[in-house]
């Protein structure tokens, strides 16, 4: 019998050659799923820790410093004066409540508008129509935030289209006001609310809706008892966007908010005008704390799994 030299050497090397380091690492990784996962998430986790956690910590630490009001130098002598001001000065309570109010209003209005639109897109529209709708909802996201805010400045103005539309009804444009700002913010964040709800609706199987109807539920009962509970996580996910983005806004309110201000404006004033970084950091803790509470409430609905 003629030996096959090639086959022999190959076979021999496979068995006897010492495994290379890379090979050993590979096989270790292959068999150890946990290690694999840890290595995979290590990099983004490190990034997250540096960029987000460290930045937040730095902000928090800064809030305990003070600014020399004359020279504008920041001094790292520890005190809680900034926080005492936050809790004792009615300005901060007023503005916090106002900001919270607008954020909630914008969130609720956006959800109410987004629900029927998303429902139409996911369950009623033809695939072609759905594509058009998705694009037209995403389209405004391509335009700059500022462009949209200034467009609304024009819409809301005394000579704007809103005034023209409302005049025959005997109404006036809300103008540059809290209402105007809520409208504009509601418009700007709407896509962020529609999309998760739309995705959530798409995930609701058609036959569950059919089953409900089959069992005798009229449309409204189906919406209330089946669609809404199943959508709750998606709605919560959408609300996170509308709520948190509104909580942090200071540009829109400046453009269409008239003579009013939100927490973001106070932060901006303290950084930009007063050059009081520590106070700004302390104020910035308010929306962070509110978001923290909001998210921990939302987490219970399972919405965070939806993001």
């Amino acid at each position: 019998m003629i030996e096959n030299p090639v086959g022999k050497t190959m076979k021999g090397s496979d068995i006897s050659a010492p495994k290379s380091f890379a090979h050993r690492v590979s096989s270790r990784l292959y068999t150890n799923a946990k290690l694999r996962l840890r290595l995979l998430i290590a990099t983004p986790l490190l990034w997250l820790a540096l960029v987000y956690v460290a930045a937040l910590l730095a902000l928090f630490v800064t809030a305990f410093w003070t600014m020399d009001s004359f020279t504008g130098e920041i001094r790292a002598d520890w005190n809680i004066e900034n926080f005492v001001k936050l809790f004792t000065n009615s300005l901060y309570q007023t503005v916090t409540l106002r900001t919270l109010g607008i954020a909630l209003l914008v969130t609720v209005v956006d959800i109410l508008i987004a629900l029927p639109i998303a429902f139409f897109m996911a369950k009623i529209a033809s695939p072609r129509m759905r594509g058009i709708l998705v694009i037209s909802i995403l389209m405004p996201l391509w335009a700059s935030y500022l462009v949209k805010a200034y467009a609304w400045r024009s819409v809301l103005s005394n000579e704007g289209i809103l005034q023209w539309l409302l005049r025959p009804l005997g109404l006036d444009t809300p103008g540059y006001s809290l209402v105007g700002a809520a409208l504009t913010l509601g418009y700007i964040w709407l896509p962020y609310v529609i999309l998760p709800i739309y995705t959530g609706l798409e995930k609701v199987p058609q036959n569950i809706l059919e089953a409900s109807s089959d069992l005798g539920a009229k449309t409204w009962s189906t919406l209330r008892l089946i669609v809404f509970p199943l959508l709750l996580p998606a709605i919560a996910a959408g609300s996170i966007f509308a709520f948190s983005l509104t909580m942090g806004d200071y540009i829109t309110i400046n453009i269409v908010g008239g003579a009013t201000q939100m927490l973001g404006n106070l932060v901006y004033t303290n950084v930009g005008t007063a050059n009081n970084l520590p106070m700004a950091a302390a104020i910035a803790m308010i929306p962070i704390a509110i978001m923290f509470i909001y998210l921990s409430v939302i987490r219970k609905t399972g919405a965070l799994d939806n993001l």
Partner: protein
Amino acid sequence: MVEQTPAISLRGLTKSFGSVTAVSNLDLEIKSGEFFSMLGPSGSGKTTVLRMIAGFELPTSGHVFLDGEDVTTKAPFDRDVNTVFQDYALFPHMTVLENVAYGLRVRGVGKREREAAAVEALSTVRLADFGGRKPSELSGGQRQRVALARAIIVKPKVLLLDEPLGALDLKLREQMQIELKELQRELAITFIFVTHDQEEALTLSDRVAVFNQGRIEQIGSPQELYERPQTPFVAGFVGTTNLLEPQDTQALFGKAIKGSIRPERIKLTTQNSVATHSGKVIEAIYVGSATRVHIKLDAGPEVTALVLSGSDSSESWSRNQEVQVVLNEKDLVQLETK
């Protein structure tokens, strides 16, 4: 004699999706209390018919009568029929009890009353202790029973079952078949059962409609369908068969017809006689309860014989073995030719 009003009556029912006709000009009457199956390969239109009866699809033309009443354009919630879905369609956010009680809930039945009814319905399907669980915590068979309980709690006139056993494994499926049959007898309501499994249809049904390409090929009792299939499609789809072309029957029986002869009707022997046709075994496949023997007849056609294990001719057959085949003319069924 006054004819009893049929539970379901379909008249000239047609459904098109764009250029595709799923159901074409269908007429069908289903008697009250009947266990009726719609059997056919996927895409044959049987599920579409079911959905039109349920009200999920509107027919392109034609009418659906439920107990003599035209419900063609009524919404599902206005029809006294209920559906058990292929993948159960249980409400994932509700407990089993809430799922079952749902039909009563939307009818405005009080909480206590509807939950008592739900418990009862659950015990009908032997799940009385599972009311507090979520559907995700149940096995496939249990979900199936919840879906059943949910559908029967509102006491519909007609229960529609869309391939309800399709996702279950064989053992569970056979068990559920028995339960379904018992349930139907117990409730005495009309069952319309959609399946692509001919054995399931034959086992369960009083009558079966065989669907092919949007039309009904044949309606009849399981025996009728099996013993006297009218078309090659039915003969081939309901059980397995040997389809014989006219030249084959001419050679074997002396008359040229399109015919079918069931494998189990074909006897095999080694003894040569006038009444037998000689042939050669191509393949013999042992399937446990029987052996399937493929034979090339000297007269031309290939046939398959099913030899039951333990029967007279159940000696082992092997490839290339000479064999004598007994074909009785009474077992030959004449089929329609188109």
